[in-house]
């Protein structure tokens, strides 16, 4: 680190957790569980999994159902109806914070 940046970096460090030195999406992963592999392979075609994890606390089963529908119907995600049900089950079990409260 360049010395002249140290005070600025120190002030930032008080407020933020520091991640990898460059943006590497492999540092965020989905929880293991039934159908996690399916979710991991389908969802990551178009986006990193932090789209899932950062929304977890806002989500419910109904919201995951509509989100997965939107991905299939509006965005053309290659997901069968059976897979959609499994992905919704997985997301609801692991990333539906509002349901859990």
């Amino acid at each position, binding site marked *: 680190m360049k010395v002249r940046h140290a005070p600025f970096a120190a002030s930032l*460090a008080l407020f933020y957790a520091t991640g990898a030195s460059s*943006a590497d999406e492999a540092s965020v992963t989905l929880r293991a569980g039934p159908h996690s592999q399916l979710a991991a392979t389908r969802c990551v075609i178009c986006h990193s999994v932090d789209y899932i994890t950062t929304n977890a606390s806002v989500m419910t089963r109904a919201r995951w159902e509509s989100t997965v529908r939107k991905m299939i119907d509006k965005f053309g995600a290659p997901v069968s109806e059976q897979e959609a049900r499994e992905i919704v089950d997985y997301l609801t079990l692991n990333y539906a914070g509002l349901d859990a409260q």
Partner: protein
Amino acid sequence: MITRRTLVATAAVLPWIHPALADRKEPLADVLDTLPGKRPLIRRSFRPPNFETPLELLRQPFTANDAFYVRYHLAVIPQIDAREWRLRVGGASCKSAQEFTLDELRSRFERTSIAAVNQCSGNRRGLFTPRVPGVQWGTGAIGHAVWTGVRLRDVLTAAGVAANALEVTFDGADRPVMPATPDFIKSLPIERALDPETLIAFDMNGAPLPHWNGAPARLVVPGWAGTYWTKHLTDIRIEPRAADGFWMKSAYRLPSSGFPGIHFPSQEAAETRPITELLVNSLITSHRGGERIRRSESAQLRGWSWDGGSGIAAVEVSEDGGQTWREAALGLDMGRFAWREFRWPIDTARAGGHRFMVRARSRAGARQPRELTPNPSGYHHNRIQTLELEVA
């Protein structure tokens, strides 16, 4: 000396909880991460990349290019060789389709600059209660820059605008992974496209646009939400019909009632209408909530205020919970689309907690509200900011 290792270790045990989010059940640690060519920014997502400017980097009048926030919908973002880049202008209401190189754009049309705020529609979405899904932006999906380029009007006029033109559509080089995913195509009403303050910009703060902010050319629509400022602009179409893609018809829409704003008649429906210009707003940048300041040392509350283009008339501060308001000092007026500084002296002779409420008023007479108007996508967060400091 502070090493990177100690910084990381310190940061890891001090996840910062945003004051406005303190009532959340789980702490929200913001993570800094670095995109090539950018300083560390708050990472909201890796791919497509969504990165937010930390508050400390919003203190300058012009947000540094390498600190400016990054927002994408689609994950395929080509690095564009400016020499190979072409801008195509066509459409059913275009009299004579044209294609321009960057040099042709620069040499054929008059160059102009404008200072303007660029703010994401969903800036502060993460501060809505109840919370709404989407990129959980804090306060930093915003920046202010001097944009330099040519007038869109001049380019459209060179290609010939037919009398039946209704909208102009804009497409950039960024594209979806799956062919079935709707490309990010936005449109403007013909009137706004022909407004002399709508630009095709290639410079930002006197330097070429950074890759992550739309190089080599992007649309600049001062006063309107960032969603219209198409990055990596490649295709402009003048059309006699309303654009009907997903990003106009389904996304970036507000409830038809409940919000002020310029109308976009060709895109309005019974229930919803597209977001258009920014609402009056402000942000304290000098301090974070909960900060301690030393007794009797002079200190000022500072920040920025802006709206959709009428300009800022006043910024008012209340220290008694909103019962009485007094006007803060305003900084330089850099234009009606620029943000304007406000300054308020902090009475550091009085020890203890200080609670400030800040609200901006536009020249059009609009004021920041005490309560937000709920909307499913979490747009237009402009509630009066409340910030507490401790003098000790």
